[in-house]
């Protein structure tokens, strides 16, 4: 049984050369211009002998969008470093996020024991589960009801715990993974768990719902050159090297604009970050949406993540549609 908790290792920050490249795409940096709150700030503070307690504000500020990981020239797992330090703090009762996550870590009460063998398992976010027509559209894009199982156990309690640094009981993790073993592929609607799932379920393809929908020519054909396609930043950064050409091809095939910066890193809305949900982090979702749309005049915004869609709707009066629904919307 593998531990759900990332291990905090000093080796993860020792290689930091202080280049600041991680800060360029960091939403916390974008909004605060405070180097202490960036991955580089954390790494260099630790190099200088600071402890996790000394950088608690910085650890609580991160949205875990993951843009720093592919940006880092030293290939440091900066998300893993932050999660490990959060876990370190939580173990000492000093976690800045544990109180927020406390209400989110109830495991599902009823879990059906569906046979997932050779099927696609969809780990759908609450908003998608609450929207039957969109859920049906997503299921259809993934191969139809006969081939898709919408999981009762979405693992979001595990995601919330990991994000806050709270230990996950091995039994609970095993229960969650048991429902996924043998699946043809696992499709997620929010990318935070993707890198963990790849480690926990070696050999099982882990894909985002957005990428899975875009695999269909019908979906790609429905994208217009006047669309802004808003990527799920966490899913994209968790599998960056594989996904860069996928989305680059999409851009050239369809002419649509993508929510990428000049480094081809995804600009996050930060709407799905734990600290954003509770309004405790320094990143304002409204500012992120404003930055994503600055200088752009899309006719509609196509989203992979429903929380991103809601964030855009709150800030701008413009059509927003989920990628699973764009064929119908054409």
């Amino acid at each position, binding site marked *: 049984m593998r531990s759900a908790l990332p291990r905090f290792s000093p080796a993860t920050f020792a290689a930091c050369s*202080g280049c*600041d*490249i991680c800060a*360029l795409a960091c939403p916390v940096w974008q909004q605060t*211009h*405070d180097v202490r709150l960036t991955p580089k700030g954390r790494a260099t503070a630790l190099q*200088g002998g600071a402890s996790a307690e000394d950088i608690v504000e910085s650890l609580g500020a991160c949205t875990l969008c993951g843009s720093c990981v592919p940006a880092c020239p030293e290939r440091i797992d900066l998300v893993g470093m932050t999660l490990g330090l959060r876990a370190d703090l939580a173990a000492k009762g000093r976690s800045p996020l544990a109180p927020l996550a406390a209400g989110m870590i109830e495991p599902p009460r009823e879990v059906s024991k569906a046979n997932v063998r050779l099927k696609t398992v969809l780990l759908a976010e609450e908003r998608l589960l609450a929207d039957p027509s969109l859920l049906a559209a997503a299921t259809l894009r993934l191969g139809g009801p006969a081939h898709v199982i919408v999981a009762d156990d979405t693992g979001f309690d595990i995601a919330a715990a990991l994000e806050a640094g709270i230990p996950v009981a091995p039994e609970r993790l095993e229960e969650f993974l048991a429902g996924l073993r043998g699946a043809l592929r696992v499709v997620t609607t929010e990318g935070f768990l993707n890198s963990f799932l790849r480690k926990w379920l070696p050999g099982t393809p882990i894909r985002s719902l957005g990428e899975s929908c875009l695999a269909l020519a019908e979906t790609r054909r429905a994208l217009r050159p006047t669309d802004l396609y808003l990527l799920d930043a966490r899913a994209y950064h968790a599998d960056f090297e594989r996904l860069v050409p996928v989305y680059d091809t999409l851009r050239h095939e369809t002419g649509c604009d993508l929510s990428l910066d000049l480094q081809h890193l995804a600009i996050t809305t930060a709407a799905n970050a734990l600290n954003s949900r509770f309004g405790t982090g320094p990143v304002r979702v409204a500012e992120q949406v404003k930055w994503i749309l600055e200088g752009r005049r899309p006719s509609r915004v196509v989203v992979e993540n429903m929380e991103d869609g809601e964030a855009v709707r709150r800030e701008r009066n413009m059509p927003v549609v989920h990628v699973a629904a764009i064929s119908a919307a054409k």
Partner: protein
Amino acid sequence: MPYDTSKSVLPRGATARHDGGPAPEMPPPPRGVIPPETVSPEAMFGIPRVQTNPSRWSGETWKPFVEELRDGGVDVREDRATKAMFVTDAGGLSFGAPHGVVIARSALQVATVLRAAQRFRVPVTTRGGGLTTEGESVAFGGLQLDMTGMSKVRWVDRDRMLARVEAGIFWHSMAEVLRRQGLDYISAPLNFTSSVGGTLAVGGIDVNACKWGASADQCVAMEVVTPTGQVVECSETANTELFDRVLLGYGQFGVVTEATMRIRPYTPCRMHHIFYDDLKAAMEDLIVVVRSESTDYSGILTMNDRANNLLFAFDSEDREKAFFANVRPKLKGLTEGQFAMRAARYYALHPWKIGEALWLWRRKRTLMPEFERPEHVRGGKMDDRTVVFSRAVWRHWGNRSMVIPDLATSESKFIESVLRGNKVIRKYFPHYTLYCVAIRLQPNRERYEMSCIPGDATGWAYGCEFEPIFRAGEYSRDTLQSFKNEIYDVGVKMGTSYYRFGGSMKGYIRRAFGDAMVDRHLAMKRAADPAMILNPDVVF
């Protein structure tokens, strides 16, 4: 008979001689003075010697200084975690620590800091991207002023093709904003975490400097906080003396808080490479290319002195076609295929150099894909050259410590200086890169005095960076410093300037520029900064 140090103090400027007895003690020079060399310059060639960090400011007036700042609403951070972020720079060889850190937020706040610093005589060290290599942005006590707290684009004026930015902004962040409007900066260092303010203070060299000059030459106006805390707007037409002192002034004459920069419409560039197995031939061709003014970008990147790459690029297809019709036939450079054939023949005849051949092949296999990533290069056109180059530089040259000594020369001294420098770097390191570019000089020379622009250059200046690749081995700080010194000794002999003459290399300032010029600048510095508190130990 033992030498009695208590009775003997050498007069200032006297030569220290070691006659077998204990070394005589020299009184420490007062702050803000470049002490005379204690041996004649000629005697130092070839002698390994180590520069040391400047002495740390003792902090006697720190407490009342901080109290005054806090009373004025300035947030001074003294915690260990914050100070730890600033202990070194990109060079990673100079280590210091500030007594405290202020994140710059406005010109008025910076002015408050500098006024108090003058009164309490507290050193203030500014820092942007921290990409200095000689400890210039490292505080050896006193206050660290982190300029990246001022990182906004104030406005963009498409009609006049100007952008006003806060000076702590990274060039890349500026480009992110400009690109949303189809615009771009004109010229910036090929390192996307250089700050605008830091670049203006030293020059800033892009691969298009052959066409546009230094990044600092794209600045038309600045808001500067003087060392005594006055906020002054200066430009090419107003307060011009301050303007020319601050540009390429190595942070001695004021803190840049905002800058108005020339911008241009964005265009991807079409990049080409030709190859040489002879460094001299590559440099001769670079001069031909530069003089022809037919390319928009040009430079030399080497893998070793048998594998040299002359790169050139164009913003328009018309210029590209004209170049290939008129200039390319005059160049000695080989195509990649021709070069590979020559290299294969050479290494077949020199089988004992198989290790070198394998290294070149591996280097090419790992490095070249970085320059051809499909998301950045499509149809032969490269988007965002700075992203492409910067990623490659940090991934393949970056390290916890970097030394990049350089020589800045006139055209007539370029080839000889680089060839001599190449002999030095080859002696120290098995693997290294030379990076050479030309810089078009602007008519206004005032700002060039005592800077990286050599006094004898006309038309264009040329620069060469000598960058060892450390990943091939570990080197002591002493070795690295000796290497830098030996490169700079070439500069002294050849009468060149340097880009990185400050910080731990400041011992070369008098030798490079001469006493008269240095003393004139020292007098200007004393007049502008009576307590000598702004960026101490960088130049003075």
